[in-house]
């Protein structure tokens, strides 16, 4: 990366204490996001993909234990004072969530909710902020923004609501936008529209976007790079084309294979279930479900290692590629 990464995670870990022990939700994630990049984070439920970035933003419950490093625009957020985190949130880094209906305050009008975002970070008069809010609504493609700003969340359709969330998130020109499954709750046609909005915003604001999803199809459309997560760790990181054509991890292969093909063959799910994060398996967490598992998969830290232009955590990758197994 020639320029400074706008978001930089190093050995980022999150665990939750429970009555039965500590749940290790995120077990050492590294990631550097360059300015204006769109990085996709792919994984199943429970892979830790959302928890990682909620942790970066400091939005996890107080009981969560966070270690490692997470820097936004160079500002370290792990262990930072509450005031620091608060000022960074909404200013340098913003987040949009999966279900816009429950993510917006139902008893406040849209306009004031956006104005609040603006006024918390810059000193603007209420009227100026309201004007700006209307511009933002227009920017994300909401028709009649002036009237709409006076409406309540439940008066919008799902897609419109998500646009409102996006408008709110970009109000202060953040350099990093985290999108946590923004299209999962939407119809397919609306999905496409929202993706288009996000891409347009990214271009116009030169913002980096971290796009979290479990849907490979969506990733294929928007991402520059992709990081695949499993059981709290990254298992592969690659440019978008490499990932789809030359995956370097059995899990990625499994994900690709499980996509329904238009040819009408039987679905090929990945056998088994994700591991229990209270007591994660040693070594590679995927080995229980991996058809290529070998004794050496049970030991080691499984860090990402460069291979053929991608990065992978699979220790057997050389052999598997030679065998043509992937």
């Amino acid at each position: 990366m020639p320029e400074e990464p706008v978001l930089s995670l190093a050995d980022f870990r999150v665990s939750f204490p429970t009555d039965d022990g500590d749940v290790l939700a995120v077990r050492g994630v590294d990631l550097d996001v360059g300015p204006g990049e769109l990085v996709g984070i792919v994984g199943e439920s429970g892979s830790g993909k959302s928890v990682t970035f909620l942790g970066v933003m400091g939005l996890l419950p107080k009981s969560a234990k966070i270690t490692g490093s997470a820097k936004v625009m160079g500002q370290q957020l792990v262990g930072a004072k509450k005031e620091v985190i608060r000022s960074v949130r909404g200013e340098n880094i913003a987040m949009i969530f999966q279900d816009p209906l429950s993510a917006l305050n139902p008893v406040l009008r849209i306009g004031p909710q956006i104005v609040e975002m603006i006024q918390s970070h810059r000193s603007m008069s209420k009227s100026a902020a309201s004007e700006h809010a209307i511009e933002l609504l227009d920017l994300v493609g909401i028709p009649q923004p002036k009237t709409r700003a006076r409406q309540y969340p439940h008066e919008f359709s799902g897609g419109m609501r998500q646009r409102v969330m996006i408008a709110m998130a970009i109000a202060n020109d953040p350099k990093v936008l985290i999108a946590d499954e923004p299209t999962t709750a939407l119809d397919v046609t609306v999905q496409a529209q929202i993706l288009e909005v996000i891409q347009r915003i990214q271009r116009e604001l030169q913002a980096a976007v971290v796009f979290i999803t479990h849907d490979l199809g969506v990733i294929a459309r928007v991402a520059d790079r992709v990081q695949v997560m499993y059981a709290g760790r990254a298992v592969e990181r690659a440019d978008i084309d490499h990932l789809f054509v030359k995956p370097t991890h059995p899990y990625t292969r499994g994900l690709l294979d499980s996509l329904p093909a238009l040819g009408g063959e039987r679905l090929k799910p990945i056998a088994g279930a994700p591991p229990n994060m209270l007591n994660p398996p040693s070594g590679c967490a995927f080995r229980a479900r991996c058809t290529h598992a070998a004794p050496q998969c049970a030991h080691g830290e499984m860090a990402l290692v460069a291979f053929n232009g991608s990065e992978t955590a699979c220790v057997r990758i050389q052999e598997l590629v030679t065998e043509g197994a992937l």
Partner: protein
Amino acid sequence: MTETISPAGDVQLPDDAFDADQAEGLVTSVSPSRMAVRRFRRHKLAVVSLMVFLAIAMIVILAPITTRYGQIERLPAIGNKVGNSPPSWKAWFGTDDLNRDLYSRIIWGGRVSLLIGIAVAVVSSIVGTAVGAIAGLRGGFLDDALMRTTDLFLAFPTLVLLLVLRSMFSSLKWLKWLFGDLNSIRFIVVLLSILTWMGTARIVRGVVLSLKEREFVEASRALGASNSRIIVRHLIPNSIGPIIVSLTLAVVGAIVAESTLAFFGFGIDPVYATSWGGLLSDAKGAVIVGRWWLVVFPCAVFVLTILCVNFIGDGLRDAFDPKQDRSH
């Protein structure tokens, strides 16, 4: 139990999906009822209350053994007083003005009060569940009418309702087969049940309404299940939690209502039996003349029992609804 009804069966996994050294990664599954018991046990006050309540219940059930005298048996003189003796070895909790042993009378009274409480709770729960379920399922005008009527009834001051209904029902001779004589235990039980079923009906209706919307009901219907099958296999198991909780509330409500009626002179005729309320009513004038034991002991036992049942109800609420916040 509300969250844990499983879908129609687990997905079939290929045989090689598991082997021995995967055990460290697997999630163990626990049945819903065991989870409910586990959650109940975490509520320490509820567990303690359960034990205390069982102890009280035992003492009360075994009245012939645990009491020292009969319910209206008058003691011979204590010291040189016949009547109104403070606690002593002969009468642990003292005696009243007819020189009857308060300790024994409290136990005998407990029989009556607890009997009333449980009888009312059971009857009103059955009626309330039936009505509430039907109203919730059918919806429409029936449901509306039910809600409006119960709204009003439940908002009216309880004592007023009790008194008005009491006088009304006692004047309707043709209802005597149901109510029995005025101021008999049966009368009180029927009267209290008539007021209590409404609360249960509302709770059950709420549960049924929320369950109706849940996908598994739709799924069942899609699979061709008939209405009665849905009721039996899905709605009832999921409502058992709230029903049991409302049952405990009904017990407390009934005991308190009966004692309130007795306190103001409308309780059970002493000819039939004396309840805790009756004891408290007898003790109304005792304070001024310094016979503290006639008030303190019945009050203490009364409040203790109510507290226990309430805590048990709270624990049951936690046990059956994991989403519910732990209020302790």
